[in-house]
Each structure stands twice: as structure tokens, then as C-alpha cells.
């Protein structure tokens, strides 16, 4: 009995016809949906342009004017600003006072001001990520449906996490800088709180997807809740947790830069001042430093995460 001989029976033909009809209808809806989406997009852009008194497309070419204000008069000043070397263009103003804020080490060696500010910014991100991680791990086990010791507690912890990540870091930072005055402390608290909410959610979703067989094994040997979590779940989720924490570190470096601009200390503050006063060389130096730092942090963290995920890829075959 071959498949060929069966293919032209009436019922087979009917099934193929019905399937083609169904596929055609699906295709029609997809095209219709895309057409509606496109029309809505065009209409909304029109509306936005009109709300701007019709200047959006007129003013678009002037976007690059802004960048021209930031071109330094002497390109060598970019390196000098970055490395804290005195500039021949220094006429006593703030535009070229590159040696201010050096941190002396020993002899003639020092840390340039901007490098130190960058380190402050990275440190804010590091400590916030670390504290956020340490708090989020236990919270996420209370929030995961499959492991939460009690349902009211689970809902409470979930709401708490939602509350913490509902506010952008910059809002929390503004609140705390009003209380704690301007400086890194407010930035650290703000980023830590937001990190707890953000990674906590990712963590408990990881936990809700684990294989429960090891946990069942731990229950069956008479393990209590802590022992089940420690041996049944933690070995499974830790690589993913670490990976998410590293991803969060990348985000937090950027967040702590931005918070710096509203008074959180570190490099963001210097960048904001430099841009608002039109100091071309300083701005260029800071942008360059930020760019290099963020690329390095992202690459290192991506490499680490690849290694972790590579390890986690080893799972038993069922």
C-alpha cells in the first residue's frame, strides 16, 4: 500500500482544499493587519507633525547644528582633557582647566579627574547590582509560584517588586537626593531598588521554569524548604541568575551615568555641565570615555554570559 495510491481519494482532496482555503484566509488577515498598521503609522506621524506646528520636517536638517557646537577648537585638547594634562589654550577659565581634580597617587603619577569620575560611576553601578542581586535572589524564591512557601507572601513580594521597578531610577534618585542631598548615596539607593524589582521579576520567571524533579527528590529525602531551594533549584538557576545580573550591570552603568546628570555624582554630572556650557573638548573627552567604557563593560559581560550559558547548556536528556 503506497502513499501515492491514497493521495487522490475524495476525502484527501477535500482536506487539501479546506486547508488551502484556511491558509488563504489567514494570509488575507495578515495583509489587512499590516495595511491598517501602516495607515495608523502614517496618520500618527502627520498628527505629531501638525502638533509641532508643522516644523518637524523643516527643522530636521538643523539636527547637526547642535553637534557643531560641540566640536573642540583644538582636537589635541580632547586627549589633554581625558588624561588631565595642562592645555596651552588655558586662559584661566573652566573650559581648559584640565589639571583640576587630579587624584595624586605617588611621585608624578595621578588619576585624571575624568577617569576618577568614570570609576565612581562604575562603582555606583557595581555596588547597586551586587546589593540588588543579593536581595533579589531570596525574594524571587518567595515570588515563584512553584516554590513560594505561602500564597499571600508570594503575592505581597510580587507586588513589592512591581512597585520597585515601576519608578525609573531617575525618579527615585531625585526623591532620595532631596533627603540625602546630592551625591552617590542617592544614586546607589535608587539603582539598587530598581535593580531588585527588575532582576527579581526575571529571577522568579527563571525559577518558575525549572525542572521540578530534583526538587521532588529533595522533598522525598526529607529536605525542608531551605534545603530544597539550595540543592533542588539553586544549581539549576544560578547560571541564569548570574547572566541576568551581568546584563543588569551593563544597564546600571548607563543608569548611573544618567543619574549623575541629575546630581548623583560621577561622570554624568561632569558631562551635563560640559554640554550645557558648550565646552567642546571636555564633552568630546567624556563621550569618548563613556563610549569606550560601555563597550568594554558590554563585551566583558557578554563573554562571561556566553561562558555561563555554555555551562548551563549541559542538561540531562530526558
Amino acid at each position, binding site marked *: 500500500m503506497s502513499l501515492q495510491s491514497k493521495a487522490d481519494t475524495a476525502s484527501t482532496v477535500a482536506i487539501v482544499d479546506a486547508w488551502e482555503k484556511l491558509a488563504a484566509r489567514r494570509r488575507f488577515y495578515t495583509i489587512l493587519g499590516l495595511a491598517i498598521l501602516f495607515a495608523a503609522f502614517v496618520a500618527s506621524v502627520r498628527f505629531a507633525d501638525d502638533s509641532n506646528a508643522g516644523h518637524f520636517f523643516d527643522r530636521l536638517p538643523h539636527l547637526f547644528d547642535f553637534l557643531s557646537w560641540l566640536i573642540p577648537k583644538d582636537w589635541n585638547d580632547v586627549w589633554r582633557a581625558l588624561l588631565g594634562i595642562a592645555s596651552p589654550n588655558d586662559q584661566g577659565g573652566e573650559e581648559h582647566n584640565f589639571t583640576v581634580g587630579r587624584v595624586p597617587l605617588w611621585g608624578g603619577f595621578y588619576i585624571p579627574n575624568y577617569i576618577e569620575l568614570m570609576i565612581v560611576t562604575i562603582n555606583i553601578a557595581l555596588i547597586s547590582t551586587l546589593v540588588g542581586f543579593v536581595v533579589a535572589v531570596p525574594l524571587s524564591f518567595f515570588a515563584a509560584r512553584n516554590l513560594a512557601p505561602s500564597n499571600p507572601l508570594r503575592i505581597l513580594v510580587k507586588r513589592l517588586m512591581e512597585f520597585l521597578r515601576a519608578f525609573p531610577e531617575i525618579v527615585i534618585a531625585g526623591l532620595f537626593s532631596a533627603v540625602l542631598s546630592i551625591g552617590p548615596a542617592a544614586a546607589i539607593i535608587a539603582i539598587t531598588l530598581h535593580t531588585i524589582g527588575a532582576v527579581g521579576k526575571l529571577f522568579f520567571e527563571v525559577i518558575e521554569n525549572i525542572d521540578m*524533579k*530534583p526538587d*521532588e*527528590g*529533595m*522533598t*522525598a*529525602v*526529607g*529536605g*525542608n524548604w*531551605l*534545603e530544597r531551594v*539550595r*540543592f*533542588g533549584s539553586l*544549581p*539549576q538557576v544560578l547560571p541564569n541568575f548570574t547572566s541576568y545580573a551581568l546584563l543588569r550591570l551593563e544597564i546600571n552603568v548607563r543608569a548611573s551615568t544618567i543619574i549623575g546628570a541629575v546630581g548623583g555624582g560621577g561622570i554624568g554630572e561632569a558631562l551635563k555641565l560640559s554640554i550645557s556650557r558648550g565646552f567642546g573638548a571636555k564633552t568630546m573627552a567624556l563621550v569618548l570615555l563613556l563610549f569606550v567604557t560601555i563597550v568594554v563593560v558590554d563585551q566583558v559581560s557578554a563573554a562571561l554570559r556566553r561562558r555561563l550559558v555554555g555551562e548551563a547548556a*549541559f*542538561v*540531562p536528556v*530526558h
Partner: protein
Amino acid sequence: MRLKLQDLTRQFGKKTAVDAVSVDIPSGQMVGVIGRSGAGKSTLLRMINRLADPTAGSIHFGDVEVSGLRGSALRHWRRDCAMIFQQFNLVPRLDVMTNVLLGRLDHRSTLSSLLNLFTREERLMAIAALERLGIEQTALQAAGTLSGGQQQRVAIARALMQRPKMLLADEPIASLDPLNAKIVMDSLRDINRNEGITVLTNLHTLDTARSYCERIIGMSQGRVVFDGTPDELTSDAIHSIYGVEHASQFDETMTSTAISTSGATEMSADPHPAGNLSLAPA
């Protein structure tokens, strides 16, 4: 100590998985539970160590009412009533040694367990358990990298570490090849004979139940429909358990995973004793 199940019932929604099961198992018996998929075998075993809670009825072990235990008393019972699973339920990322040591969890303080601080005595005990099952050379490997048969032996070593008074096995050989299935069943029989503890095991192959168990309990639709010795398991009894129209439709050798040995065949009703290597359907 005697295990006594009295009208034990478990319902999932409207469906009754285990329906008023009353069984009395004296200490030291090796008992096989057979039946179709969905007959309630797993639920029955999982109620005995309380991985599932009974809807009605009671479980007694000696003087202890197991069905009423809570908190640390319940954890002590689970320690005393070790269980091995079809899918082994080890921690795949931890090494074999740690997996076996985890059998000690309810014998020690939580803090030292969480910090992974096991005593030298416990390590020696773990090695002894692994040696008994012939897999001591895997002690430092991650459990997830072992073959199924090796993993099941690690699970048995972990169960031994609990110093159990009873051993439950839920389809222990269903995912194993015939040779490993024999090794695992031999180990269970060895534990039953040397430790003198009750072994209660679910099996999906009749001939394994016949060869290894002194008593067979047959379940169908949540009820016990057969309870007796392998000799009493006639084709009528098989019919009542599996619900096949004619016993002739049902050939035990079709589902067999056993490698026939002299020890296995003497009790077996297997008409083709030699070289039966057919694999069980999944």
C-alpha cells in the same frame, strides 16, 4: 513495621485516581504494584510518602498515622520512607558524591547542609553506598552526565543514605535498558533481603513483577483488583487488571524488558526463556 492502608482515596477534581484502597503489608515484603497507565499506581506510592496528600482514608506505619503528619514529623517520615523515581530526580549539576550525601539531609542541621559541610563519616558512608552499587568510580562526575542506569543507581545510593525503614520505587526501570533494569531490580532485591526492609515498587512489566516480587498487587481504575503471589496471577487475573478481551491477546514477552536468568526464570511463566531482549514501549 507493618504498613497499613485503610480506604485510601485520592481525587483529582472529579476523577478518582485511587479509590478506597485497603492493603496490609507486613515488614520485609517485596511487593510489586502492576496495572495500566493511569490505574493509580504512582498516586498510591506518592501518597505513602506524602508527595501527594490523600483525599480520604488513612496510612499507618506501625503506630504512626502517616496521613496525619506535618512539618518536621512529615520530613522524618519521608526520610524513613525513601523513594526512587522513574526519572531518578537527582540534581544533575551536582556531582554524584554530593547527590548521595543529600540523602542525609534530614539527619543533620540545616545550616551545615546549606553550607555543604558533610562529615568525614558521612563521606565514607556515601562511598560505601556507591561501592555497593558498583559505581564508586563516578563519584566526582556531575550526575547529569551519567547514563540512565548509573543515575538510577546513584538514586538508590542516596536512598540507602537515608537509612530508610521502607523503600518505595515508582517505575524504577521504565526508562532503562534491559541490562540496567536487571542491575537495578537486583539491587532492590538485595536491599530487601539484607536490610530486611519493605520494598514497594510500581512495575509496568509483568515478568519483572513475577521474578522479583513475592507479592503482587494489581490495580485497575484506582481499585485493587488483585492481591496475591505470582503463582496466583493467572490469565483471568491478568484480564481483570489490564482489561484485555482474551488473555491470548496479551503476551507477557511483548512487554518484557528482562534479560532472563536462571534466578528469574524459575518463577517466571515466560514461555520463551532464552534471549528475550525486546524493549518496552515508552
